[in-house]
């Protein structure tokens, strides 16, 4: 292989893409529910909207549409983080999330665009099971994962531009530039032929962590970037050990026999899975936010699409685990809504906005709901 190909297609400890995918998807779900959903009442007000892209301008997203897209994306993302991700599901998460911010300039948070780029990278990640990423031996399995390298390079490009604009404005740029070089090098640290890099890469991780702790940032940017830096820069042994510990329950629960063919459990599993797909979105009925019921129902339909014929023809418990992950994600949405100020913030924002516009009926309706969910 040529040097450039060796850079992109060299070995990576499989624990890194495994943990990175799940960490970002899980965080994305809670970020959506806790930070984006409270802003939902802003959408569709006065029939005015400007999208990020001119071709989307003709479409004016209503509050219910926006909340539905967010509920769909969040539940699907968390369900994929909880059990083996499926490529089609990741494509749907990427599409839903990107549509969520792209449909209006009301969401102009810089890192949302970055997350869309990450989700595009995730589409090409290997959809590893816990068994594949964390073998029984203590040795970390490795493999060629070009999408992981692309993820690191994407992050490096972001830091490169942060440094470049800082330099152009006469501000200090060495820290973001160190982050940029750190990510370019850290993607190679698991290669057997580069032992020196393996020793130094963890030290380079201090740069992004320091940058995100020292620089004021919007939303959960720091949480994402520090978490990502820990997975990318930590020594492979540590990441593997962490992954093994975190996935131990999953690995023992989803232990499957190796024999193929359908067996007598297939029919029971089929009906149980189907029942789960119907029941899971019902949880959203207790959430009392516009569009959420539709969003969760669409997630169940998407899950049906994802599972396809596997729902009946897979002889083992896999469909049931997948439906359980959907159920868990719906339940997590409900608990998050019940335990957070999301609903109060949503209705309060709607009330304030309606009062400002002298829309007394809407203000009263929003006000009643805000009082109901007041902390």
């Amino acid at each position, binding site marked *: 292989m040529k040097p450039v190909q060796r850079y992109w*297609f060299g070995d990576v400890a499989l624990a890194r893409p495994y943990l990175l995918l799940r960490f970002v998807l899980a965080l994305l779900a809670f970020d959506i529910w806790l930070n984006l959903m409270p802003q939902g009442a802003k959408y569709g007000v006065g029939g*005015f909207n400007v999208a990020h892209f001119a071709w989307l301008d003709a479409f004016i997203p209503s509050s219910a549409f926006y909340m539905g897209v967010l509920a769909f994306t969040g539940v699907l993302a968390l369900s994929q983080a909880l059990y083996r991700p499926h490529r089609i599901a990741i494509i749907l998460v990427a599409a839903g999330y990107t549509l969520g911010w792209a449909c209006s*300039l009301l969401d*102009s948070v810089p890192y949302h665009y970055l997350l869309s780029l990450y989700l595009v990278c995730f589409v090409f990640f290997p959809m590893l099971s816990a068994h594949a990423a964390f073998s029984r031996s203590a040795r970390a399995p490795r493999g060629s994962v070009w999408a992981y390298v692309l993820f690191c390079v994407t992050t490096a490009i972001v830091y490169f531009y942060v440094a470049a604009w800082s330099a152009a404005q006469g501000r200090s740029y060495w820290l973001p530039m160190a982050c940029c070089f750190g990510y370019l090098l850290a993607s190679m640290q698991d290669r057997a032929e580069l032992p020196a890099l393996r020793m130094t890469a963890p030290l380079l991780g201090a740069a992004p962590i320091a940058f995100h702790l020292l*620089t004021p940032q919007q939303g959960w940017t720091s949480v994402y970037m520090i978490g990502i830096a820990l997975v990318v820069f930590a020594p492979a042994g540590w990441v593997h050990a962490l992954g093994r510990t975190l996935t131990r329950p999953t690995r023992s629960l989803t232990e499957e026999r190796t024999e193929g063919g359908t067996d007598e459990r297939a029919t029971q599993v089929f009906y149980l899975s189907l029942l789960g797909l119907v029941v899971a979105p019902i949880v959203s009925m207790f959430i009392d936010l516009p569009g959420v019921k539709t969003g969760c129902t669409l997630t169940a339909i998407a899950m049906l699409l994802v599972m396809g014929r596997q729902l009946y023809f897979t002889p083992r418990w896999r469909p049931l685990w997948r439906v359980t992950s959907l159920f868990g994600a719906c339940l997590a949405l409900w608990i998050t809504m019940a335990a957070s100020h999301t609903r109060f913030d949503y209705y309060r924002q709607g009330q304030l906005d309606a009062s400002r516009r002298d829309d007394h009926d809407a203000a009263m309706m929003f006000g009643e709901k805000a009082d109901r969910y007041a902390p």
Partner: protein
Amino acid sequence: MAYSETEPPPAPPSAKTRHRSGAFIAAFVSLQFLIPLTYLLRADPTDERFTWRTFTASAPPSCETSASLERFDGQREAISVSKLIQQDWVDYLSQDRRAVVDAFLQKQCESKGVLQVQLVNRCEGRSTHAYDLRCGSGRPHETARTAAR
């Protein structure tokens, strides 16, 4: 048949796979390098989207926005901007965000009998920006006046 749900640890890529993945990588990375550079060509300097110029929200506006329209019968009416659109859009207007200013003026032109719409941003320590749109014409005309208060 490739099984997309669960894959074994990825095998070393074949030459064909490397070639196809390489094309995607080249396109994806090139786009990421080029998109931030479009900032240098943007007519609106307040539009910092996709550039990584900042990780923070833009500074709150210190401008006072007012709007008015002129009807075909020559009558002028003041528009209460904050009663028509959500507050975040008002903030965008006061930051001179061109895409939002253009869309707002076009939207007012959709009302019956409107000949011309004007939006004025009076800012502390900055020049006053006025945007005029003659309904039915193309892009709004922008004028900047210094110390107009």
